[in-house]
């Protein structure tokens, strides 16, 4: 265990002493982030960027307090640049326009939504509080996952506020009734008041998304384009780092240090473990340095710090799995290098690092699921929009599974090939 750690630390030290590697690990993603940031006008105050004017159709069949409040969120001035909302009264027609790729998502607020949440007169029979809220439907366009994701995040945020209010509000109403402080007939008035309170709290100024849509000096802007570009570039060059690490396994074999390790009282599991740990540590260090640098130099808000750290570690694990499998299949360090570069670019493009996946054909979007880039980028977008660790379960589970599967496969391959012998 200790030796695994020592070997890993040694590899991090070597990677950070290799000037060529440093350029690709740190300088390249940083410079590209700046470059693409300039292109999208991030630094000139121009708010036009890849994530703006997301077309969304709101079908409000509820037409009561909460339904209206949610519809208002989408049309609020704060989100005017980010979203391009349209109203419709026909759910079927709205769904159809998704199928025709005319919008990123449809939000259908069914009739009775408000009533299912805010108790009405006569509802306060014994089991009234147990009424299930009517579900809001977000019909997402699968070809525009990021846009749809943003819409979902807005709806989720709204619902979680309503839910908080509902539980505390409903409970207090029931308590008041039980304690005889209000009569059931007063319940409706209380309920309406509570609903108004939720409404007052729920417009966009209370949404977490606001956190990211305003800069430090309070000036309202859009979802920061860099919040997409910076992780995209970091993730792309993370693939470089893991193949560099994988290559070092074969390089150590060629330069004789691997055989030398094997004749020391260190077993091969410790050695392989140390190499994997080294790749993981180097990748994590790279990501955290890039995240730190962009926060420092661009005031970029990455979002929930815990979420960022867990997501980084999961993404690095998945990428490390790729580094290992490439190494296990390749024969020479230079093969790893060339395959690694190819994969870095392919994953970068297909994983949405340059062009938002929503603008790509469906088969590429399917393919993107095998890249750590797409999943992690999805997670970083969620965080950038104000999501927290809790909202990241899908990308994190996907990344961890990817890492584990690839790692096991590469260990099996290494086992067959044997570390040194022909």
């Amino acid at each position, binding site marked *: 265990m200790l*030796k695994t750690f*020592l070997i890993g630390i*040694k590899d991090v*030290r*070597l990677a950070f*002493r*290799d000037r060529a590697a440093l350029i690709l690990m740190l300088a390249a993603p940083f410079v590209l982030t700046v470059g693409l940031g300039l292109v999208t006008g991030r630094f000139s105050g121009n708010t036009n960027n890849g994530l703006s004017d997301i077309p969304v159709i709101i079908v409000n069949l509820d037409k009561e307090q909460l339904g209206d409040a949610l519809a208002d969120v989408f049309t609020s001035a704060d989100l005017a640049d980010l979203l391009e909302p349209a109203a419709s009264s026909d759910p079927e027609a709205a769904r159809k326009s998704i199928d025709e790729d005319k919008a990123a998502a449809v939000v259908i607020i069914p009739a009775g939504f408000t009533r299912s949440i805010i108790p009405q007169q006569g509802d306060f029979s014994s089991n009234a509080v147990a009424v299930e809220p009517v579900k809001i439907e977000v019909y997402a366009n699968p070809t525009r996952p990021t846009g749809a994701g943003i819409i979902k995040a807005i709806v989720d945020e709204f619902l979680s506020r309503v839910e908080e209010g509902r539980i505390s509000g409903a409970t207090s109403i029931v308590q008041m009734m039980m304690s005889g402080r209000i009569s059931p007939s007063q319940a409706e008035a209380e309920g309406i008041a509570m609903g108004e309170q939720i409404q007052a709290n729920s417009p966009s100024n209370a949404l977490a998304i606001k956190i990211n849509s305003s800069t430090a000096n309070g000036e309202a802007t859009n979802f920061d384009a860099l919040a997409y570009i910076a992780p995209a570039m970091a993730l792309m060059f993370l693939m470089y780092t893991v193949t560099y690490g994988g290559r070092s396994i074969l390089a150590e074999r060629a*330069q*004789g*240090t691997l*055989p*030398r*390790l*094997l*004749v*020391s*009282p*260190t*077993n091969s599991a410790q050695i392989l473990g140390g190499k994997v740990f080294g790749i993981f540590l180097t990748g994590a260090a790279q990501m955290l340095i890039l995240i730190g640098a962009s926060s420092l130099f661009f005031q970029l808000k990455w979002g929930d710090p815990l979420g960022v750290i867990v997501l980084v570690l999961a993404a690095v694990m998945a990428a490390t799995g790729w580094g290992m499998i490439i190494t296990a299949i390749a024969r020479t360090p230079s093969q790893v290098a060339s395959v690694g570069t190819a994969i870095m670019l392919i994953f970068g493009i297909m994983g949405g690092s340059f062009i938002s996946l929503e603008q790509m054909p469906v088969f590429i979007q399917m393919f993107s699921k095998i890249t750590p880039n797409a999943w992690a980028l999805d997670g970083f977008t969620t965080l950038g929009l104000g999501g927290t660790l809790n909202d990241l379960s899908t990308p994190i589970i996907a990344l961890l599974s990817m890492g584990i599967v690839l790692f096991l496969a590469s260990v099996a391959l290494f086992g067959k090939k044997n570390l*040194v*012998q*022909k």
Partner: protein
Amino acid sequence: MGNILEVQNLAKNYGDFQAVKGVSFNIEEGEIFSLLGPNGAGKTTTISMLSTLYTPTSGDATIGGYSVTKNPMAVRGVIGVVPQDLALYEDLTARENLIFWGQMYNLSGKSLNSRVDEVLEQIGLTDKARNRVKTFSGGMKRRVNIGVGLLHKPRLLFMDEPTVGIDPQSRRSILDTVKDLNKQGMTLLYTTHYMEEAQELSNRVGIIDHGEMIALGTQKELTQQVGQAETLILHVGENDDSEALAASLKGIQGVQQAEATDHEVSIVCAEAEDVLAAVVTKANDRGIKIRSIDIREPNLEAVFLHLTGRALRD
């Protein structure tokens, strides 16, 4: 003293190719044993099996009582290995390399640090300890490569052609280090294709060719085995009559030949020790002062030539 290493019919095939064809030999605790052979003879392959890197195709060896095939981990604690090709991290400093490798040999803390200082001293790189290995000359790298093998004070040290491709000065210092280590009690298995090194260093020599051990023994045993004689060289003064001395020496029993060149008299005999006293007496009788005497044992090059019909180095 007993054998620290016993090799029984060790063989290694690479595919159909037999690189080592069943060699057997022992190394006694405290000796320097040389494995002498030309390029491709199978020296590195043999060392790789003994150091548990390669699994033998057949045969086995025990080191310090542990089998290399059945108990490799125990063997690794007994041996130190200096590989033929440099095996170092060039982007680490000399000191960082030694620290890292020391850790891999389960050293840590203060004892590791002081041991690293000792080894740096021993390989003469204390001043350069904080420079990266990639800035070193070939000879300096070789010395770090040796240093790594010494860290855990192994009982048996394998050195695989440690002087290949370096300048005479570095070579000299490495050979001296080898002798020092041996004086301090370390047993060494030294491979080389330089006959002079095997001659200078070793108590016993194994000559290996095409994967076979073609001769084994002390240098004297090997040379006598092929009927080689020793050469005694007397260095005399400028004004001394070396011709006359040479002529008179021919009469001594055991002297096969005596010849004078400039200020030297070369005497060929079966055993230098047997004739030495008589030679010195004769010189004294003639009033010739002997400045120094060299005994050139018959060389291993000749043995190799005799056994294979080829020169050791082509």
